[in-house]
């Protein structure tokens, strides 16, 4: 099956090229092609995860075989963690694209929208699959350039300003990442993850390696909008069209921020406790400050965007706790519990935050406002939006039996077992903050007295939008199954294994 791995990049890239060319002459071409492509890729990633027997699929671009155990080709590697991320990207991409079928009517350039969406997905799939440092940078830039254009898609004042801000900060982040990649090449004379990791292991703890790690933490931290670097996120994510907000908040910051960071720090560098403490600290800071900032927002999408910072903080903190425990030689069970909690929260956040942004888009589609004070009593007129939004709010707030509860529970248990009582207390506290902000959203949007009666005589959203939201609402509930034995072994455990057996990655690639 390893011949199928490049399809994840090639197919969306090719459709991004074909859509503007053919879509001009053939109506419905852009929509149907995007949907078909993303559905196919979702099925492909699911089929990998379900038939997976723990083996790593690697495709050598150009067909160059390893010479004396030195990898020469550019590798595209599909293992448990990549499969997990690729599944999130394509599943959410499909649902957002399906939602966009009717949402995007209010914009003119449909072809460009779908082409940019495909380009962004190609870039993110590339980041998730690549096994080469410079290739990581290239795919990352493909994804972010498409996202810059998509943030500015409405070309109104706010969109343009948000996009400019995003581009300047994103540009600095890319420069720092490229610098880090260059430094790794200078130190190891290789760009392959596996090869670099064996050489970096000999330099573990040297000042140069620490310097590179700091550069990469800052670069990917900017891309993931961790707290000292978060300034662009609320603007960019709230200005984009709603299906794109769902993709940016649900997938992009994780695929090119968190995923790239953990892949490099677990599988390329030797885990050092200093960097682990840094990641835990910025994760905890993001969690708390993002939550506090979200409380005072009245713009729905800005509230969700700040809450994204907070929830991604949970993920980073959990992964950081796992790294600290591994670096200090602590119990493997605790470390794998923390990492499982982080990854589980990552996929949960992708689904519920994607759903919340789609709900915000549905409200904007009907009553054309994002201000909570101007909404009210929508539950009566928009039952699908209201009920799915309720599910998502409960999931993000961590109310059982929704999936968000189990992931937060895992993170808190891991923090307590690892001896990080302060962090566990913070996680509980921020969970309370999260409940309060989503209570506010529910109350003002769906249950309060209507702001103006005549405006509220509206219908629910059209079928494609409702369909995507309902699917994601159901996912919010049934994803809690992921943590139970039987289902856990299919999706979550392979991803955790890749990070726990961090040196196995290098041995597998070099042994090919």
């Amino acid at each position: 099956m390893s011949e199928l791995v490049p399809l994840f990049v090639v197919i969306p890239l090719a459709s991004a090229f074909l859509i503007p060319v053919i879509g001009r002459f053939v109506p419905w071409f852009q929509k149907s092609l995007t949907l078909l492509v993303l559905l196919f890729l979702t099925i492909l990633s699911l089929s990998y995860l379900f038939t997976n027997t723990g083996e790593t699929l690697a495709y050598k671009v150009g067909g160059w075989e390893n010479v004396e155990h030195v990898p020469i080709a550019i590798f595209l590697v599909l293992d448990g963690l990549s499969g997990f991320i690729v599944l999130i990207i394509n599943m959410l991409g499909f649902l957002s694209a399906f939602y966009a079928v009717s949402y995007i009517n209010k914009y003119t350039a449909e072809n460009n929208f779908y082409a940019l969406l495909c380009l962004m997905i190609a870039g993110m799939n590339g980041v998730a699959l690549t096994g080469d440092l410079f290739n990581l940078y290239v795919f990352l830039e493909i994804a972010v350039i498409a996202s810059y254009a998509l943030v500015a898609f409405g070309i109104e004042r706010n969109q343009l300003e948000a996009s400019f801000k995003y581009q300047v900060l994103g540009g600095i982040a890319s420069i720092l990442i490229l610098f880090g990649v260059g430094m790794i090449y200078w130190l190891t004379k290789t760009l392959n993850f596996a090869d670099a990791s064996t050489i970096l292991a000999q330099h573990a703890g040297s000042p140069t390696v620490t310097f590179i790690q700091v550069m990469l933490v800052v670069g990917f931290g900017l891309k993931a909008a961790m707290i000292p670097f978060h300034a662009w996120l609320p603007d960019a994510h709230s200005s984009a069209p709603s299906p794109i907000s769902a993709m940016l908040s649900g997938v992009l910051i994780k695929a090119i921020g968190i995923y790239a960071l953990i892949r490099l720090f677990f599988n390329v560098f030797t885990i050092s406790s200093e960097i682990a403490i840094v990641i835990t600290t910025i994760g905890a800071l993001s969690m708390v400050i993002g939550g506090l900032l979200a409380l005072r927002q009245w713009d729905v999408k800005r509230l969700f965007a700040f809450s994204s910072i907070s929830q991604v903080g949970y993920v980073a903190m959990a992964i950081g706790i796992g790294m600290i425990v591994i670096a200090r030689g602590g119990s493997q069970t605790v470390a794998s519990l923390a990492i499982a909690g982080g990854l589980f929260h990552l996929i949960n956040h992708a689904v519920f935050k994607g759903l919340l942004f789609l709900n915000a888009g549905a409200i904007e589609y009907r009553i054309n406002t994002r201000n909570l004070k101007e909404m009210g009593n929508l539950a009566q007129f928009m039952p699908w939006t209201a009920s799915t939004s309720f599910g998502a709010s409960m999931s993000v707030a961590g109310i059982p039996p929704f999936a968000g509860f189990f992931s937060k529970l895992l993170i808190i248990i891991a923090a307590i077992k690892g001896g990080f009582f302060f962090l566990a207390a913070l996680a509980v506290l921020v969970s309370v903050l999260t409940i309060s902000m989503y209570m506010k959203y529910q109350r003002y949007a769906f249950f309060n007295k209507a702001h103006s009666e005549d405006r509220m005589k509206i219908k629910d959203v059209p079928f494609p939008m409702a369909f995507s939201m309902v699917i994601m609402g159901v996912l919010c509930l049934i994803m809690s199954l992921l943590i139970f034995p039987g289902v856990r072994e299919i999706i979550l455990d392979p991803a955790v294994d890749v990070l726990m057996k961090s040196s196995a990655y290098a041995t597998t690639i070099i042994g090919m």
Partner: protein
Amino acid sequence: MIVYSLCFVLFMVGLYGVVTRRNMIKIVIGLAIMEISIFMFLVLIGYIQGAEAPIITGHETAVQFVDPLPQAMVLTAIVIGLATNAMLLAIAIRIYKNYGTFDIRKVNELKG
């Protein structure tokens, strides 16, 4: 060593431009300068004093060749830099059409 320090100086010049300038075009120029300083650093990584270009002609005099891989990387990175700069400038021009100014202080409707 001096060349490496000059790279760093160039990086700082670009960063200074991005941080202090108010004009959007100058911010874009600052970013481009930062990018170019990194490109120079990448080329320097592969450079070896007294080595030849890595082209096999059958008449090489030196035994050492410079590393060609960073050069390939820089070529790719320049193309990517072109795309990001074009994107930035396109947005800057759109902002100018909307606000009638390039001054970043006057483009402040969002609160960050």
